[in-house]
């Protein structure tokens, strides 16, 4: 199969709210897909259906040949899918009862059955890469938001997933901490791993994305290279969204 991630006609409703109305997307290995859109457009939900944290109602997800059909699947298939993906959360969601090192090791030890000593060594290496060498034995509550998020990224990276899902990774951060996390994500992108990123950071999207997807109302409105979508969007809805976002930035700086 030439695609790393195949999202096929995904529908998802929460009660009467039809959040995803048939979203399809094929993503090649090494692509960095940035999903943009106003709040309520379904972009976070789409991301969460990819690893079945929210189970889709219709459609199917395939990650590196692990296929899960929304209407007919087993728990084992979902587990298999999750083992091929990793996720970085808006609120970090680090395990509060574990140190940073234990957080990163946890998946290796309990899911992948690595020896503890090996897992520890690998985790330390990853933590060094995201700049947390000094913080191995700190608990999440003792770290800043930026440090916690970098630990969250390390926890995702260590599993060597086929695709990493970033769910608004900088939205909960203090403005001065956004940069360090974005830099870490950029470094990850340069390793050639497949990434799907939901974010509001337009500048980041421009720099890192190989493809930008604009969603609104539960459908993909427009997608293409960042140079096209972010500079010369064809769809009026995309234009409105971008002018609102950049307008907001201008107002702030004025």
């Amino acid at each position, binding site marked *: 199969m030439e695609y790393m991630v195949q999202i096929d006609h995904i529908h998802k409703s929460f009660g009467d709210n039809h959040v995803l109305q048939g979203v399809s997307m094929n993503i090649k290995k090494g692509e960095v897909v940035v999903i943009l859109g106003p709040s309520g457009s379904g972009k976070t939900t789409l991301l969460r259906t990819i*690893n079945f*944290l929210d189970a889709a109602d219709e459609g199917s997800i395939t990650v590196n040949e692990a296929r899960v059909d929304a209407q007919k699947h087993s*728990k084992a298939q979902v*587990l298999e899918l*999750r*083992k091929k*993906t*990793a*996720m970085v*959360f808006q*609120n970090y*969601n*680090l*395990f*509060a*009862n574990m*140190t940073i090192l234990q957080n990163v090791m*946890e*998946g290796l030890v*309990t*899911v*992948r059955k690595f020896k503890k000593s090996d897992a520890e060594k690998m985790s330390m290496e990853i933590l060094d890469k995201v700049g947390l060498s000094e913080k191995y034995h700190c*608990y*999440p*509550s*003792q770290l800043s938001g930026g440090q916690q998020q970098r630990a*969250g990224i390390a*926890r*995702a990276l260590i*599993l060597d997933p086929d695709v990493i*899902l970033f769910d608004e990774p900088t939205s909960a951060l203090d403005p001065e901490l956004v940069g360090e996390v974005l830099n870490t994500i950029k470094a990850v992108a340069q390793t050639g791993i497949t990434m799907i990123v939901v974010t509001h950071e337009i500048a980041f999207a421009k720099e890192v994305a190989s493809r930008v997807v604009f969603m609104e109302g539960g459908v993909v409105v427009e997608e293409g290279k960042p140079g096209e979508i972010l500079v010369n969007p064809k769809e009026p809805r995309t234009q409105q969204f971008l002018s609102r976002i950049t307008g907001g930035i201008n107002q702030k700086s004025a």
Partner: protein
Amino acid sequence: MNYSYDFASIPDYMIKIMTAFPVTLEILLISLLISLLLGAAVAAGSLGRKPVIVAISRGYISFMRGIPTLVLIFLLYLGLPQILQGCGVNISSWNKMFFIIATLGLNTSANMAEMMRAAYLAVDKGQLEAAYSVGMKGTTAFRRIIYPQAFGIAIPMLGNNIINLFKETSLAFTVGVIDILGKARAITSASYGANKLETYIATGIIFWIVCVALEQGSKYLEGVYTKGRKQAAS
């Protein structure tokens, strides 16, 4: 009548009463175990997705918390044999310990269930999603992530529940079990009530000392258990 108090004799009474401590301890430990197991089942039921089981669990908790322990003792000790006799089963020869342990186990299980439910709900569930995202199964996530945090949150309440349970073991005397209080009553009866005051002061002191020890133990455990991540629980 000549009242003469001999407070210097209190330590002697304490020693005599303490000979019944193993009985109290047995009641405490077995009913504690029952209440934890039953409480866990009821808590799981009340947190579950099946409406019928949720309703049954909530009803059980409501009833057990609403009924005085003494009433429940009488129900089991006096009422249950009557019903069972009607069914042709005779339980009047059963050990009296059974009734007091069953009562305290049932009664306390409701408090334990509420404690566990609250502690479970207090753990931030984003961590559960993170556990799933790294490929953990639900049971593994509960064992590794949710339970350890819920336990830390529950420790102070667990201490309270154990202290309450310990004090309620004194109701054992109502069915004729010779626990600490039963022993104290036996001592006063043997001297025709002449040393009532000293005996009951001695009994009170024993209960008090054990409760203080339990309280300190609970605080110590909480301190050790949540060390380094105290803020995480808040």
